């Protein structure tokens, strides 16, 4: 596998300008001859599809939800970062670049991260023009808040619904192009395979989820914007339908899969209460601006939180990380919470939570101000738990959230398959080994609005004058045949266990052995257990009904089948990285104080996995990371 990053020459601050000034262009009258498939309609997919169509390309847009607006970007609560420096607190593109690179524990590519920071300001302009109702000061100008891992206020927000509002903006732009006839929209369609011709991405096989019909779609380029695979842990903050199937199937067709084990466990989620539970709801990180995290100093303290006096509370983040306190980055906050819970200081009926307390903030600012900032989050908390967080502290716990890993992409966001692009959370690019809060919406939007519309032209210019698009080819026929065979196999096992049974078992195993902490012994066990579980899946699964009809159990089964393969690569990825960095914490590699021990001399690279064929060990390739602009340091938030 050849890993050519295609990073442009020149100083860091000029690379993107130089690229834009020199990349190939497609003339306006030729764009309409070129067709692009975009899979996924979250922020990355909607913004890319809309931007391509505005430029004149023909676009086919796919989502498995019943409307593009329902993609999981809607669930992002707290905000989106941009280095506008509206607060006059010394922010700049360079500072944002440095914060992001450091937040990712120096395991991302300098040029990509700088470009993300550089394009961030444009995004706010774009969203405001679309009518996104960001929070504003009384003078009418845009408001900001701060987020974890940084010391400036660069986060823009729309109450606790920033993702929803940004997505509605992108969805409205997409809708305008649907009306204009430039985007053909396929809702309730799931991509089940990628089709290659002459080694290039040439289309997809999709299943119409309402009818079960199999469809072939051809295009000059295929863009995957299918989101993260954090749902692999089953209990997660993700939507029920979130999956890794599109990227996994692209991987099996040759796309390198990078840093599979770098998955973020978010510190502020609602704790698990029972076996029936289907998800762990995220409470926005923005709450850590005003909430203070603590546990009792006494083990197994059964007093109500209000009865525990101030001096008997351990504000452990403030104690361990005085410079950042409650705004320590997510990986650090999650590990610190797990450490306290495992040591016996957890709170709540299952002793699996910590307190997030607003009493101090309410005393300082008044309840009304807190309600204005977080009202909908407090309301959501009460709906789910039945408790009023204005009167008693929230109980929170870490839960699987974001996948920094994903398909490897170069500077142009192209995967190792020519003509196949991956944008937003489904790629590995900007966040390194840990993503900072409010950078996820940013990356999805910047990829879709501002980067791919330029870089895809550099490829499509070479596709003009090639052979006519056709789905009546041997490659399409073979891909469709393979998909049909897999679906038939899933429906014909006739066992007694459900796809969810397997998903839950896999999730518990990964939480235990490839979650907040990993070890060689645990990972080696996990690989064996995953193989056994996968083998059992193909013998004892039950999927009633057929592939020729609406069948949500079949949809789940297909996704779980892919998760059972991806999980193994995650474990290999974690096993072969003998260091701790960001969200990847190997028990064998920690400092005397229990902090992550990075080993730059051996591991300053990104692991990129090649698919070796069924039931064989994945093949490791490396993208060495070179730092020209900054010096990787020990990542300290103390």
């Amino acid at each position, binding site marked *: 596998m050849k890993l050519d990053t295609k990073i442009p020459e020149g100083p860091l601050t000029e690379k993107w300008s130089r690229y834009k000034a020199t990349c190939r262009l497609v003339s306006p009258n030729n764009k309409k001859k070129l067709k692009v498939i975009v899979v996924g309609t979250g922020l990355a997919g909607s913004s890319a599809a809309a931007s391509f169509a505005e430029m004149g390309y023909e676009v086919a847009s796919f989502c498995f939800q019943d*409307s593009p607006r329902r993609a999981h970007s809607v669930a992002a609560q707290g905000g989106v970062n941009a280095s506008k420096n509206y607060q006059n607190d010394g922010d700049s593109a360079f500072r944002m670049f440095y914060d992001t690179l450091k937040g990712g524990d120096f395991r991302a590519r300098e040029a990509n991260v700088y470009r993300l920071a550089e394009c961030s300001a444009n995004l706010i302009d774009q969203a405001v023009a*679309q009518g996104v109702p960001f929070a504003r000061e009384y003078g009418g100008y*845009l408001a900001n808040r701060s987020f974890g891992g940084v010391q400036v206020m660069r986060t823009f927000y729309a109450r606790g619904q920033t993702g929803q509002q940004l997505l509605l903006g992108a969805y409205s732009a997409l*809708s305008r192009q649907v009306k204009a006839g430039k985007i053909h929209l396929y809702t309730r369609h799931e991509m089940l395979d990628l089709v290659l011709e002459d080694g290039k991405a040439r289309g997809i096989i999709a299943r119409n989820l309402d009818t079960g019909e199999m469809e072939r779609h051809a295009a000059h380029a295929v863009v995957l914007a299918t989101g993260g695979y954090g749902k692999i842990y089953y209990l997660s903050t993700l939507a029920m339908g979130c999956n890794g199937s599109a990227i996994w199937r692209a991987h099996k067709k040759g796309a390198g899969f990078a840093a599979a084990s770098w998955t973020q466990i978010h510190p502020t989620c609602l704790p698990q209460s029972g076996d029936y539970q289907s998800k762990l709801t995220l409470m926005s990180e923005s709450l850590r601006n005003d909430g203070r995290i603590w546990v009792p100093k006494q083990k197994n303290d059964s007093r109500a939180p209000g009865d525990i006096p101030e001096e008997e509370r351990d504000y452990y983040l403030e104690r361990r990380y005085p410079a950042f306190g409650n705004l320590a980055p997510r990986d650090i906050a999650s590990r610190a919470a797990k450490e306290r819970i495992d040591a016996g200081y957890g709170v709540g009926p299952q002793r699996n939570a910590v307190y997030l307390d607003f009493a101090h903030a309410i005393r300082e600012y008044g309840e009304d101000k807190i309600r204005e900032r977080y009202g909908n989050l407090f309301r959501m908390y009460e709906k789910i738990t039945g408790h009023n967080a204005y009167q008693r502290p929230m109980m929170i716990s870490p839960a699987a959230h974001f996948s920094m890993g994903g398909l490897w992409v170069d500077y142009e966001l192209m995967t190792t398959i020519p003509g196949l692009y991956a944008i937003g959370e489904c790629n590995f690019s900007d966040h390194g080994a840990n993503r900072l809060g409010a950078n996820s919406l940013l990356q999805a939007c910047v990829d879709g609005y501002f980067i791919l519309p330029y870089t895809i032209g550099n490829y499509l210019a070479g596709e003009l004058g090639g052979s006519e698009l056709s789905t009546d080819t041997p490659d399409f026929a073979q891909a469709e045949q393979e998909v049909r065979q897999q679906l038939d196999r899933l429906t014909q096992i006739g066992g007694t266990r459900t796809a969810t049974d397997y998903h839950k078992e896999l999730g518990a195993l990964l939480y235990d052995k490839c979650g907040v902490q990993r070890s060689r012994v645990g990972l080696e066990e996990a690989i064996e257990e995953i193989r056994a579980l996968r083998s059992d899946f193909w013998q004892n699964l039950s999927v009633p009904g057929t592939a020729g009809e609406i069948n949500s159990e079949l949809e789940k089964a297909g996704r779980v089948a892919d998760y059972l393969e991806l999980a193994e690569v995650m474990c290999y990825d974690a096993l072969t990285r003998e260091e701790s960095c960001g969200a990847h914490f190997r028990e064998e590699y920690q400092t005397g104080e229990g902090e992550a021990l990075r080993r730059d001399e051996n591991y300053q690279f990104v692991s990129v996995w090649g698919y070796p064929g069924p039931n064989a060990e994945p093949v490791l390739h490396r993208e060495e990371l070179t730092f020209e602009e900054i010096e990787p340091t020990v990542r300290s938030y103390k």
Partner: protein
Amino acid sequence: MKIDLKIWRQENARSKGRMEDYTLSEVNPDMSFLEMLDVLNEGLVREGKRAIEFDHDCREGICGQCGLFINGRAHGPMNAITTCQLHMRHFNDGDTIYIEPFRAKGFPVIRDLKVDRSAFDRIIQSGGFISTRTGDAPEANAIPIAHQDAEDAFDAAACIGCGACVATCKNASAALFTGAKVSHLAMLPQGRPEADQRVVQMVDQMEAEGFGHCTNTGACEVECPQEISIRHIARMNFEYNKSVISQNE
């Protein structure tokens, strides 16, 4: 808790549906309503029986995909929540619960409890946007918007497109959904240049999709999970009249 369920089963849009009886004997009060249905479905699938199809995704009340008619109310007995946020602690041991799809001419049933709400997408496509292109936006702070105006626009923009307003309306009107989008964009300076065409196109599309007219019963705002006010329907009507009158001049 023991719960008896009467659930709507329907093969497809053309077939006739019926209520079927199910019983769950060990329901935990802390389960969400959809988790209760998960437990029922898991049992059916283990026996090789077809699962009950229902819409859901984020399970935190924001994607708008879930929506069930529970004991005669859209999203069930509690106010200001989606179905996924309803918990079994709001029911009693021994209750019988009736579960039906959102019913409206504009929302044909696909199977069981799943309905087709693509009409909402087409209403947005007819004009629910500001015509700006990627890259042509001015500096964000170039247009100050008063705090209260931004907050009011947000109240309308908060619509999640679930369709509870339609399902509960005796006229199956989509006026609250359409009004919320018209109102959100009409209240912002960026949305004003197209306000006149937008409202007419969206209202025309709403009618073309088979949704009824608003007769101001206010049922929609009672069931709206985002508590969107019928003031936005009033603003849509105001914008509509203003637009029609100015075009007639």
